[in-house]
């Protein structure tokens, strides 16, 4: 362990991603297609254009989230800027039957799974703790306790084994999460039971202010070997490579070969959340380096250079992004504030007499006031009823 990597203030990233074929890449940052011995991708031009559209739309959803927070419409936003390819690549590898267990940043995977981005906003606006039905799109609730969802995903995969479903579970987590006991327990269990699960780690280099070097001495994908299943490191900014690798891992799982670990090597271009200040712990120069590896630019370059897409197509995509952004904005501002007594709903499936009593007491208390309950203490603002 070098001195630099021990001190987060004088951080050093781990040596650049693994050399050679250990680092799976199918599209260079300059937009050149390259081949890989173990991973090929059978994909049409139209499909690549679709991926481009996905990337742009996902970035725009994320940008709108940030703007809305700056305008006071959201209490918080966790940006995925820079990680679009990792999420779209993985998301588009999933079938309808596969079930994704996210952390709280996988807005791109949600998009691919068909989740309306407005659905994700409730918890960031503070009107709910999530609230969506995971079964609807096979996309779990955002889990803020780091790493917990990897065990849920493993259990889900064990359930698939037991009911014979033709599906796999995929757990998303970051580099920081790999330090958590639960993630390591999930690896143990998945290996022990040969569960049909893909562990997808977005190594975006940072856990708030702590560099990945604080979490591990060895590239994260190597961890899998210790637990007895395959691990692969992929260029997380290369949507084609991520797609190929994730498809392969899911196939492995579905055919009964058990778990895999994918380390998508990427970078968190934005702060941890909108309340974070990265200037306190990382260098602007790093951002500049990573801008050159932008996931969307390389696809655009590829499409343009090879005459697959023209100006009209790109304009079209921008227009679609504008429309989606407007939808997100309108949906956000239109989210209803919860009624005070609704806080007692959904604690239990079977209800509770104590809750009924408390609800009644709060109800009486609130209706004992002369004025309308005018100024709700709503997190997104004081709104007149």
């Amino acid at each position, binding site marked *: 362990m070098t001195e630099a990597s021990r001190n987060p203030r004088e951080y050093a990233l781990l040596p650049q991603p693994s050399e050679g074929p250990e680092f799976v890449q199918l599209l260079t940052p300059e937009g050149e297609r390259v081949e890989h011995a173990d991973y090929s991708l059978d994909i049409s031009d139209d499909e690549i254009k679709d991926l481009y559209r996905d990337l742009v739309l996902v970035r725009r959803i994320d940008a709108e989230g940030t703007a809305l927070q700056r305008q006071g419409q959201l209490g918080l936003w966790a940006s995925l800027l820079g990680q679009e390819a990792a999420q779209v690549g993985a998301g588009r590898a999933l079938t309808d039957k596969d*079930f994704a*267990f996210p952390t709280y940043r996988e807005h791109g995977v949600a998009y691919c799974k068909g989740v309306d981005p407005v659905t994700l906003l409730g918890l960031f606006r503070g009107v*709910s*703790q*999530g*609230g*969506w*039905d*995971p*079964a609807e799109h096979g996309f*779990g*609730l955002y*889990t803020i*306790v780091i790493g*917990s969802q*990897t*065990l*849920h*995903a*493993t*259990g*889900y*995969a*064990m*359930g*698939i*084994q*037991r*009911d014979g479903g033709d599906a796999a*579970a995929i757990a998303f987590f970051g580099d920081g999460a790999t330090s958590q*006991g*639960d993630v390591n*327990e*999930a690896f*143990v*269990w998945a290996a*022990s039971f040969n569960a049909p699960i893909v562990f997808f780690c977005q190594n975006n280099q940072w856990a708030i202010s702590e560099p990945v070097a604080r979490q591990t001495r060895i590239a994260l994908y190597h961890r899998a070997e210790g637990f007895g299943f395959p691990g692969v490191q992929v260029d997380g900014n290369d949507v084609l490579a991520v797609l190929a690798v994730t498809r392969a891992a899911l196939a492995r799982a579905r055919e009964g070969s058990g778990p895999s670990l994918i380390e998508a090597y990427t970078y968190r271009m934005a702060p941890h959340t909108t309340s974070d200040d990265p200037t306190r712990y990382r260098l602007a120069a790093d951002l500049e380096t990573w801008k050159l590896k932008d996931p969307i630019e390389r696809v655009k370059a590829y499409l343009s250079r090879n005459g697959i897409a023209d100006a009209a197509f790109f304009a079209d995509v921008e227009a679609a992004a504008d429309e989606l952004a407007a939808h997100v904005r309108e949906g956000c501002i239109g989210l209803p504030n919860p009624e005070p007594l609704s806080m007692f*709903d*959904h*604690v*239990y*499936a*079977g209800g*509770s*007499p*104590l809750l009924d009593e408390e609800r009644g007491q709060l109800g009486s208390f609130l209706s004992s006031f002369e004025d309308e309950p005018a100024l709700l203490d709503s997190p997104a603002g004081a709104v007149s009823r």
Partner: protein
Amino acid sequence: MATLTLGKALNEGLRKALENDPKVLIMGEDVGALGGVFRVTDGLAKDFGEDRVIDTPLAESGIIGTAVGLAIRGFRPVCEIQFDGFVFPAFDQIVTQVAHMHYRSSGNVRLPITIRIPYGGGIGAVEHHSESPEAYFAHTAGLKVVTCANPVDAYWMIQQTVACDDPVVFFEPKRRYWDKSEVDTDAAPAGLWSARVARAGTDATLITYGPSVRTCLEAAAAAAEEGREIEVVDLRALSPVDWDTVFASVRKTGHAIVVAEAPVFVSLAAEIAARVTEHCFYSLESPVLRVGGFSIPYPASRLEEDYLPDLDRVLDAVDRAIAF
């Protein structure tokens, strides 16, 4: 009608649960081939298969976390935490995930998970094997908590708990695993959330649960020799509590004493005392007294008889209450 130990009654109840619903799974350390360190799951792996009665890795958080995933997939997992003192690695999953998922999902996700935990002392064990952590779980919104005190309740309550669509922590009084009684497996069971008047009386009410129920019944029998008739209320459900039964008893006798093994400071007994005082104020002839453990880590086994509330400590509290 059969005479069963409490442990065997649980075993029979779990067997019924596995028979009645193919989605029921049992998972925990050593629950399969060994049948559980207390034999509560004896024979079940053999009859229902390793896929349904699962020997798990040695990872409590993993037991509960994977149970969450299994429940989302549609199964009804019955988790075992081998001993009370070892539930803490799983505490995060229980409190932040199991307890909150229904609320977080606005009712879309149900987690019908049972978490069985043998608890309490009096078995001469080493550290971490005699704890009474029920307050942590009763305090957590989104969980329900129950405990059985005898073989009849064990047989029925475990089945009702497994069938409940909410996550329930099911505490089993390990020192009573070998207590025997007749169990009528055809009878209609009492409601899961009802308290039970285990012994009727007029002079004072003992409010208790789990391993302390027998202690209180023995104390009441001894008091009867001295001409005092003490009522014993077995709470059975620790969250939510059947307050009506408790209040009716206290209003009748005017004296309430809560008895449990857990350390008294910030215990369930403290909540019961506060609520009884609030609702039975005009009927109280004495303040609500609490008999329980001291504010120390559970002591070495040769001290535990002095630590645990026993017949003399219970009756001393009754004397003090009546003397007020």
